[in-house]
């Protein structure tokens, strides 16, 4: 973080959340800072995606306890679209398709949610879009196609990152941006996210694997097991996990829930 930018924080305090009556998050406490890239790792079913959906406000994820403050504003008092406009972004693991809605129209509509006719800069929008397409090694013809319809797995992941780039959120949560991608695609997505990572914004990347972290170079790594953060550390923690597997987390701090 440089002294020239305003620092932003996303403070998650003792977050409990349930899905279909089953408690998945059991007291997550985590603070994200602008300028930092954070990785959230953990085995399947540990609650990583639940954290992402609960923060964004998915109707099936019920927050039962705790707060999430974006620069002091409680996200849980806002509707989904208001959270987005407040600066929160979620990159989906499985993005939805919308037939007949072109990607370009969608990006423009989302952009316009943050602008008025006076503040919108179509030239700047277009310039950035072209630049991002280049970083992501994407074909511009995708813009004219229906949103995510018939897109390959890699195209969908890139489109999520493209949306993040377009909307300039304060905090982005990317839910497994690397899953299902080949090595080249992981590199393209990883490098773009790293490039887009501005000093006035924070990014939380959810992943199982260390390989995307090679490009992202996270400042912090957290490990979630059974709905709580079990272990936190620097970049080296990811490498250790890669080498030893998640099992090592449990024996090391088996009673760490309290």
């Amino acid at each position: 973080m440089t002294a020239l930018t305003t620092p932003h924080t996303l403070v998650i305090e003792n977050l409990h959340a349930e899905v279909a009556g089953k408690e998945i998050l059991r007291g997550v406490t985590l603070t994200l800072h602008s300028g930092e890239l954070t990785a959230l790792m953990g085995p399947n079913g540990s609650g990583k995606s639940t954290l992402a959906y609960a923060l964004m406000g998915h109707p099936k994820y019920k927050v039962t306890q705790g707060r999430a403050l974006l620069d002091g504003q409680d996200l849980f008092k806002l509707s989904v679209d208001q959270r987005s406009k407040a600066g929160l972004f979620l990159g989906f693991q499985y993005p939805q398709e919308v037939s007949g809605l072109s990607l370009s129209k969608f990006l423009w509509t989302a952009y316009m949610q943050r602008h008025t006719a006076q503040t919108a800069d179509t030239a700047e929008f277009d310039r950035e879009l072209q630049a991002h397409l280049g970083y992501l090694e994407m074909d511009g013809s995708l813009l004219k196609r229906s949103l995510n319809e018939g897109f390959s797995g890699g195209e969908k992941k890139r489109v999520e990152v493209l949306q993040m780039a377009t909307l300039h959120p304060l905090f982005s949560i990317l839910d497994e941006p690397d899953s299902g991608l080949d090595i080249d695609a992981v590199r393209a997505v990883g490098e773009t996210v790293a490039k887009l990572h501005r000093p006035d914004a924070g990014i939380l990347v959810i992943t199982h694997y260390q390989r995307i972290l090679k490009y992202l170079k996270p400042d912090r790594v957290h490990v979630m097991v059974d709905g709580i953060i079990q272990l936190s550390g620097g970049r080296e923690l990811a490498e250790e996990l890669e080498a030893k597997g998640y099992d090592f987390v449990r024996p090391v701090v088996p009673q760490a829930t309290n």
Partner: protein
Amino acid sequence: MELVEVTMAQANEITPLDYTRYDFKNPETYRLRIPKGLSRSVVEQISKFKDEPSWMLEYRLRAYDHFVERPMPDWGPSLAEIDFDSYTYYANPMLEGETKRKWEDLPADIKNTFEKLGIPKAEREYFGGVGAQYDSGTVYHKIREDLSAKGVLFCDTDTAVKEHPEIVRKYFGRIVPYNDNKFSALNSAVWSGGSFVYIPPGVDAGIPLQAYFRINAKNVGQFERTLIIADKGAKVHYIEGCLPLGEEVLVGDQLTPIEAIETGQPVLNSDGLETTVEKTMVRPFDGELVHITPVSVGNAFELTPEHPVYCIPRRKVVAGHRTHRQWSDVDPEKLLKASPEFIPAGDLEPGDFVHYPINRTERDEPGFGTAALTLLGYYLSEGCVQKINGCEAVTFTFHIEETRFVAELSAAIQELTGKTPWAAQQPEKHAVSVGVYSKELYGFCLQHAGKLAGQKQLSKVVMELPPEKQRILLATYYNGDGNFYDRNGGTVHRVMTVSRQLAFQVQELQARQGVFATINVREPFDETMPDGRTISHRRMYTVYHQVGKHAEAVRRAGDAFLVPIRQISRSPYHGNVYNFHVAGDNNTYLVKGFSVHNCTAPIYSTDSLHAAVVEVVGEPFSKVRYTTVQNWSKNVYNLVTKRAVAYEGALVEWVDGNMGSKITMKYPSVYLKGRGARADILSVAFASQGQIIDSGAKAVHSAPDTSSKIVAKSIAIRGGQTSYRGLLHVAPGATGVKAAVRCDALLPDESGRSDTYPYNEIHEEDATITHEAVVGKIGEEQIFYLMSRGLTESDAIHLILMGFLAEFAKELPVDYALELNRLIQLEMAGAVG
């Protein structure tokens, strides 16, 4: 900027929704108008106005005879409520042959109407020719000079009959014969206006030709006839826009549509006295309406929340002590002393007393004696007018034991007509039938009490007779239709009727007798009998009051009744609300019998009928595209026959969008009659509350190597219904046919309904046929995804719907695409949140 589509960029610039743009209405002034109703002489009169050649008159009359004989379709949505005699079949704001070619020459109100709809602008910017039809009359037709220099003909069909008879006679009625269906017969009999287009061989008309149709008057039918001929190798795109009619409101105890209320017309005020309307007004309203249900449920009414209602708040008249019995906490003395005040509808509470004044207007009519009123009472309950062997007769049916009533009625008939009525026993039905042949009595009953059970209604003369005379009519009406039973020490007097008007009139007549009668409504329902038959019960109104013991809920106060409110609810409403000012100091009028201040009341409607016929001829290697954007107001029956013939190598495309109307039945067809002919049909339906859109397409392959593609997309929302009804026919000998049908339905809120009825008749084995049908919902995940990018829920749904319709929208001229966008936005605003 290239990346962003034009329509979206423009859509973002659209300032707040302005639905009023279409929902306005001009005074009904016509140079030529035939009174409502349909008969042979109406058909002859239309032809005479048009000074037609005899072959056209003969054609019309043949079609009329077929129309009369032809039954209503026994499939599809119910058209049972259509009363062909309630429409005006010809109303022309100008004289025949007066069609203008210069916009400035149009009468100001018509010019104004079409300017609000953007027509001169459309002509300037997009189209090669424009036509405009206002009710029956083609008021304007113009074609660009360069097109007419190439030999393109574009005029109204009436003019074509006169100026191009050789072409018209060759094609008229050849593609859609008058006896194709009941409504093509109707159109063929009474048609007026429509477009005639002829494109000579090899000519490409280039920019589209455009016509606008508008129904302005209430209960006017529009029956345009369009004929489009593309000669060999010619190309044309024709676009028609069908635009809404302003809707109507019922107010006052006569339940008159507000549009029928004109300045100077008498209405009742809260004193039960007549006053006159000084000024009428309409405004758009977007918000919640308040539904007020008094203890007489049938009198429920709706108002905007700020609308003042004349009432006595219950809290001002409660007794000092509380009791648990409903309605009994009121101090009768306080109530009688209280003076009613105006309270905004939104501030009313259940239990407050609304004010039902007794109509005190009295005009005696010496011609109405005991016999006449006795007869009318029995007629309301048991009578009907009919023609037996061509002679006018009035008949009544009684139970076999009701001999006293038969005697009383027979005496009345004898006195009125001087004839002895017959009385025929029908033991197998336990009935006795009483009747008389009398043209005078037939006319009298029709005029003063109406015809069918559902439309029985007393005339104004009868409603204003002195109460002591009306008492005679009530007595015999209750003899016939009433029943009586004891309850709580009193006797309940009850009549049931399917006529809404009559129910309210009986309530008013009882009020004049000093009795407040309650109206209850039983909604229509279907009952399945043990043998599997279904019996449909109509909406039934019960009017009842109790004699012998004072009914506690409703109190008499001078010349009015004070009626407690049973229930208050609210619902969102988007559209126009109406009001009017009345003369005098009283400043009130009556809604469903209750006093309200000069202000607003919601919309009800009477219907209009649009039955067009469109014939398209695609000569070899021609290309014709016919685009329709239909946004009739929601009281229009839209029953249209559209058919094209495509000869060798020709391409015919229908792009057919149906957003408006009450009921639409329309199945654009292409008959592929030459080798290699192609059909492309894109049909879109959007049905919201109260709408049934039954649409589809037909492709009839009768030549080899022909192909057809049908895409039908429908959205049913807020209880609307859509159906796809399609026919794919491959005739013997039509080898190498390719046909593809795709039906996509979207049910965004799961309250709508969508059905698919595809019929395939394939007589050649080598035909390649594909059929897909998908019914979709808008998923929670999809909405969440879009909302996570900052879109509100309604914007998200709107984008999904527009995406669903994108295939259609991209085929439309920009103005229409924007209009579609706005329309869906408006419907969504009502559906979400």
